[in-house]
């Protein structure tokens, strides 16, 4: 954090403005699904808005693969970009910080301040690296529940997330059914398809076969598996966009006005992907990337019920909003519709909107009139309930 003094006037009126992340340290051991446990761990957290007296207006934001705690507002007056979901969190926005107390954290295993593979392992005095346990969505939800305890939140007004974040929301509804009134699951799925796992495996192989990976101990070697991460991000990035949105953005535009008959950048799209990959490889930890993709692959709440999702959903007590985007092929509307069908078959309360958008999977982060209308309408009811104290 810089010591810049910024006044509210420096930020847009519908922004939460200047925000400061906080560290929450925990010394109760967290038992993990994989069999091991974390004894001392910490979470990096941001909050926006104010918790009301009966703590009924709290909303938890769950982040996606490369997300973190900084979902809204600015860290300094010099920040060029606000948090990753600033379009949807703020005064008067769908997650209205005038009405809600919003909690956003960096998940365990992350690389933005919460305990993860790049943290120091107290047993060895070295970074965990590959020794950091593989975490699951359920482990994250358990750690988030302990955070809720610490904040004095017995029941969330809503738990909200897109993509991998949506999986955490679904897990919340099943693991702690009484601790949330609403689940908002956006551009997500109850389990990845083989194709989706395939993309994750390509990303992992890109990282693990980088000569600088050093079996995950690259930090001790003082290097990063830059090329692997870069490649992983480039492939990932393509899958988050749609054919249409890439066409619109780049077409076949050339970087210079002619082909260079070599293997350097010819097309704008190549330049863009290289830039995205480069930026990402400098700012994201490779072991965290591996861990997050595994959590995605493993998630399947129906697996304990012989693959019967309807049965698995039996425990849920909250109301659901499910949202998908027409051109999202990484987490396609079909996946959301499977979840909705299982929810209706289980006679759970659910609404579903399939938003027409050209932006592929990334649509869940991008401003869109209809998406905002649906999201706002739903969250306004959640807020109204939080005030009256009425559930459902």
């Amino acid at each position, binding site marked *: 954090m810089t010591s810049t003094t910024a006044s509210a006037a420096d930020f847009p009126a519908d922004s939460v403005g200047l925000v400061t992340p906080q560290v929450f340290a925990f010394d109760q051991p967290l038992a993990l699904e994989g069999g091991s446990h974390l004894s001392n761990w910490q979470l990096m957290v941001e909050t926006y808005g104010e918790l009301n007296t009966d703590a009924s207006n709290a909303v938890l934001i769950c982040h996606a693969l490369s997300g973190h705690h900084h979902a809204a507002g600015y860290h300094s007056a010099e920040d060029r970009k606000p948090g990753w979901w600033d379009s949807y969190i703020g005064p008067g926005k769908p997650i209205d910080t005038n009405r809600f107390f919003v909690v956003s954290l960096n998940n365990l295993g992350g690389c933005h301040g919460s305990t993860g593979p790049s943290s120091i392992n107290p047993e060895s005095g070295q970074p965990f690296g590959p020794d950091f346990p593989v975490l699951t969505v359920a482990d994250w939800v358990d750690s988030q529940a302990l955070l809720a305890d610490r904040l004095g939140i017995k029941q969330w007004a809503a738990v909200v997330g897109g993509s991998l974040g949506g999986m955490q929301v679904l897990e919340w509804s099943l693991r702690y059914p009484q601790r949330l009134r609403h689940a908002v699951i956006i551009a997500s799925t109850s389990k990845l398809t083989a194709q989706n796992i395939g993309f994750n495996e390509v990303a992992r192989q890109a990282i693990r076969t980088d000569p600088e990976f050093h079996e995950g101990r690259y930090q001790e070697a003082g290097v990063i598996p830059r090329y692997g991460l870069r490649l992983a991000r480039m492939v990932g990035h393509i899958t988050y966009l749609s054919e249409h949105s890439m066409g619109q953005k780049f077409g076949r535009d050339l970087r210079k006005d002619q082909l260079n008959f070599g293997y350097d950048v010819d097309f704008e799209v190549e330049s863009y992907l290289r830039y995205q990959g480069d930026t990402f490889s400098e700012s994201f930890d490779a072991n965290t990337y591996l861990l997050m993709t595994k959590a995605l692959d493993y998630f399947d709440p129906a697996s304990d019920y012989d693959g019967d999702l309807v049965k698995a959903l039996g425990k849920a007590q909250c*109301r659901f*909003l499910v949202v998908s985007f027409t051109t999202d092929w990484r987490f396609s509307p079909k996946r959301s*519709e499977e979840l*909705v*069908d299982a929810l*209706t*078959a289980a*006679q759970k*309360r*659910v*609404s*579903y*909107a*399939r938003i027409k958008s050209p932006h592929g999977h990334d649509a869940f982060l991008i401003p869109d009139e*209809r998406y905002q*209308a*649906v999201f706002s*309408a*739903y969250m*306004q*009811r959640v807020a109204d309930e939080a005030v009256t104290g009425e559930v459902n």
Partner: protein
Amino acid sequence: MRQELAIIANWIQPSAHVLDLACGDGTLLHYLEHEKGVRGYGLEIDPEKITACISRGVDVIEQDLNRGLKNFADDSYDTVIMTQALQVLRRQDLALDEMLRVGREAIVTFPNFAHWRCRLFLAFRGRLPVSKTLPYQWYDTPNIHLITFKDFEALCAQKNIKILDRAVGNLAYEGNWKANLWPNLFGEVAVYRISR
């Protein structure tokens, strides 16, 4: 409209599990939830109506009825309702089959194309009728399959669908002796309750 709601509410068991096809802005489901304690979902494709349902707290699912109800199991609902939408579907016969596969009973409402005003309109003006119940021009109407009460009842007979109840009236469902005596001539709208 209010009268139609009351008739439908009257034919639905308290706490019934219902599906409302083409549920619009959720008025009916909202009414049934509060009056009869029903549980269920509305299906709709119009984005603004979907948002309106959500604002009301009505559970709404975005789904195109022309693609059937394959995602709903046999006999999974007590009543499947469709108000003023049968005439906009591509295959009404298949829609009725689907409704009675998913629901034990169905309630449908639609405007009567054989109402005397429609008949006179066509007979004397020689043009397709435009009325309060059918306010569109032939080229912009969503009502691609217009129905008369007689046609509907003939289809039901052919498909062995039982007509359990029928309420016929003018737009406000004020029944009168003429509509009761000659429904296909004097009824503007009807509500049918049907089953297999």
